C-alpha cells in the first residue's frame, strides 16, 4: 500500500518534471554544448565544427559584448536598488490603515499587469523628440529647443531605467508587503514602550524580519532585470548607437539576425554564468524558502 502510494507520487510529479526536463533542462545543456562549436544557420551545409573555447575567447575580446555586459549590470544595479527603496516605502505605506488603502493596492497593479512592450511604447512617446516631456518643456520661456532624450546615450539610458522602475516597483512593493504583513504588531508596541523611535524600529525590527522575503525578491528582480529585453526593444531598440543594447538583445540578434548559433550560445552562457554567480550569494535565503 505504502509502496503503491510512493509510485503514485512519482507519477503525479511526472508531467511537471517531464515538461521542465524537455523544455528547459535539455535546451540549456544544448546551448552550453553549442557554445563550443562553430555553427551558422546560413552555412548549415558545413554543419557544426568543434572549436573548443574559441567562441569564449572571441567573447572576451569583443568590445561590443563588454559594452552590453556593463550596461546590463549598471541597468540591473540601478533599477533594482531604486525599486527596492521606493518599493519598501510604498509597502510600508500600504501596511497603514489609511483611507483608500484598497485603491492604492489596486492602482499598484496597473504597471504590473501592463505588458513591457506597451510600457515601452508609452515611455518612448513620453521621451520622444516631439513627445510629452519636450512639449511640456517647450512651453517654458527659457527652453529654446527640444532635447533628444532617446537620441543621446546617457539620457536614453536614464529614460529606459525610469521606465523599468515604473514597471517593476509595484511587484517589488507587493512582495515586500507580503513579508511586512507577517510581522507581529506586538514587536512594535513593545519597542515603542521601550522608547525606540521609528527609524530604530525600522532597522531593528522590520528589516531583520522582512529580510528572508526581501532577499528572495531582490534575487528574482536582479535575475529578471539582467534578462531585460521587451521594454528596451520597444523604447530604443538598443540605440542610440547600440548604447542601450543588453546582453539578451545582443544574443538574440546574433542568433536570429546573423544566424551565428555558436557565438550566440556563448553569449547566452555568459549571462547564465553571471546569473548563477549572483544566485550563489543568495543560496541561504533560497534554502530558508524551501523549508
Amino acid at each position, binding site marked *: 500500500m505504502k509502496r503503491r*502510494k*510512493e509510485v*503514485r*507520487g512519482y507519477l*503525479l510529479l511526472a508531467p*511537471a518534471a517531464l*515538461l*521542465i526536463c524537455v523544455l*528547459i533542462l535539455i*535546451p*540549456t545543456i544544448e*546551448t552550453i554544448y*553549442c557554445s563550443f562549436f562553430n555553427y551558422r544557420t546560413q552555412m548549415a551545409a558545413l554543419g557544426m565544427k568543434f572549436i573548443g573555447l574559441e567562441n569564449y575567447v572571441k567573447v572576451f575580446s569583443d568590445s561590443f559584448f563588454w559594452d552590453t555586459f556593463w550596461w546590463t549590470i549598471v541597468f540591473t544595479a540601478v533599477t533594482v536598488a531604486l525599486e527596492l527603496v521606493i518599493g519598501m*516605502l*510604498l509597502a510600508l*505605506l500600504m501596511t497603514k490603515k489609511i483611507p483608500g488603502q484598497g485603491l*492604492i*493596492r*489596486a*492602482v499598484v*497593479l*496597473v*504597471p504590473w*499587469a*501592463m*505588458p513591457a512592450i*506597451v510600457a515601452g*511604447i*508609452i*515611455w518612448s*512617446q513620453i521621451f520622444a523628440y*516631439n513627445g510629452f516631456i519636450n*512639449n*511640456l518643456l*517647450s*512651453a517654458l520661456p527659457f527652453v529654446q529647443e527640444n532635447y533628444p532624450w532617446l537620441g543621446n546615450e546617457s539620457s536614453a539610458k536614464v529614460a529606459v531605467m525610469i521606465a523599468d522602475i*515604473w514597471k517593476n516597483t509595484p*511587484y517589488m512593493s507587493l*512582495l515586500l*508587503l*507580503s513579508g511586512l504583513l507577517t510581522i507581529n504588531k506586538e514587536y512594535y508596541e513593545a519597542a515603542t514602550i521601550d522608547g525606540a523611535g*521609528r527609524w530604530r524600529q525600522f532597522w531593528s525590527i522590520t528589516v531583520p524580519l522582512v529580510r528572508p*522575503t526581501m532577499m*528572495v525578491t531582490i534575487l*528574482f528582480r536582479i535575475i*529578471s532585470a539582467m*534578462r531585460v529585453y521587451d521594454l528596451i*526593444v520597444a523604447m530604443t531598440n538598443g540605440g542610440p548607437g547600440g548604447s542601450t543594447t543588453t546582453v*539578451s538583445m545582443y544574443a*538574440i540578434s546574433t542568433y536570429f539576425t546573423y544566424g551565428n548559433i555558436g557565438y*550566440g*550560445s556563448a*553569449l*547566452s552562457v555568459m549571462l*547564465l554564468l553571471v*546569473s548563477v554567480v549572483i*544566485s550563489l550569494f543568495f543560496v541561504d535565503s*533560497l534554502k530558508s*524558502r*524551501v523549508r
Partner: protein
Amino acid sequence: MKEKITPVKAIFIAFLVLYLLAMVFPLVYLVSASFMTEADLSAIPAKLIPSSLQIRNYVTAFTRQPIVLYVLNSFITSFLSVFICLIAGCLASYSLVRTRIKGKTLFLLFVLAISLLPTITIINPIYRMYSDAKLLNTRIGLSIISAVLDLPMTIWFLTAAFKSVPVSFEESAEIEGAGLSTILVKVYVPLLKGSIFSIGIIDFISAWNKYLLSQVLNPLEKARTVVVGLTLYQLEISIPFEIVSAASVITIIPLFVIVLLFQKNILGGLLDGGIKE
C-alpha cells in the same frame, strides 16, 4: 480621534500621492493619446485631454493589422497555457505535499533554479526543437513553453495552498473508499478553488505578456499574439503614435478588465508569496 499631521507624515503622504499619480499617468496618457489627432500629440504645451474624440484611430488600428486575430491568438494561447500550468502544477504540488516521494526539497530547489534561467539560454534549442516538431507558428506550441516557464511560480504557490488543507480531510475520504482522482476533484479542488483561480489569473497575465518567445516562435500572422502584432504598427514608418496607442489600448483591455474584476484574487495571489518573474 484625529491624529496630528507631523512633517514626516506629510512627506509620506506627498510621496504616496505623487507615486500613485505616476503609476496611473502612463496608462491615462495612453488611453487619451489613442483618441488624439496628430496635432494634439505635438501641441505645445503638451495636451493630456484630446481636443476631440478620434474614433478613427481605432478604425485604423483594426484595419491596418488583423488585430482581432492577434487578440484571439493571445486568448487561446494564454488559456491553453493556464490550463497546462494548472494541471501539471496541481498534480506536482499534491505529490510534493502529500506523498512520500524522495527528493522533494531537491525538486523544489531545482524548480526554483530553473526560474532563474535567462530565456536566451533556451530559446534557440526550443526554436530548433519546435521546427523539427512542426510546432513553430502554432498556438499550442507557444502555450506549452509559456506554461513551463510559469510552472515554477505555480508550483511554489500551489504547494503552499495544498499544505493548508488538513490531512484528515483526505484520510476520511480515503476511508470511504474514494480513489485519488475523486480525492483531488472532490476534496482538494473545492477547498482550493480560490487559490487555484488566483494563480491561474496571474499565469494568464504572464502568458498574455510574453513577447520574446512569441516573437521568435510564432513569426507568422496566423499564430501571432497581440503583443507582437502591436510592434508591427511601429515598423511602418508612417504610422503615428495615436494609432499605436489605439492598438495598445486594444491589447491591454482584456488585461485591465481582468485586473478590475479580479484584483482581490491577484493581490491575494501575489501577497501569499507567489513568485512572479
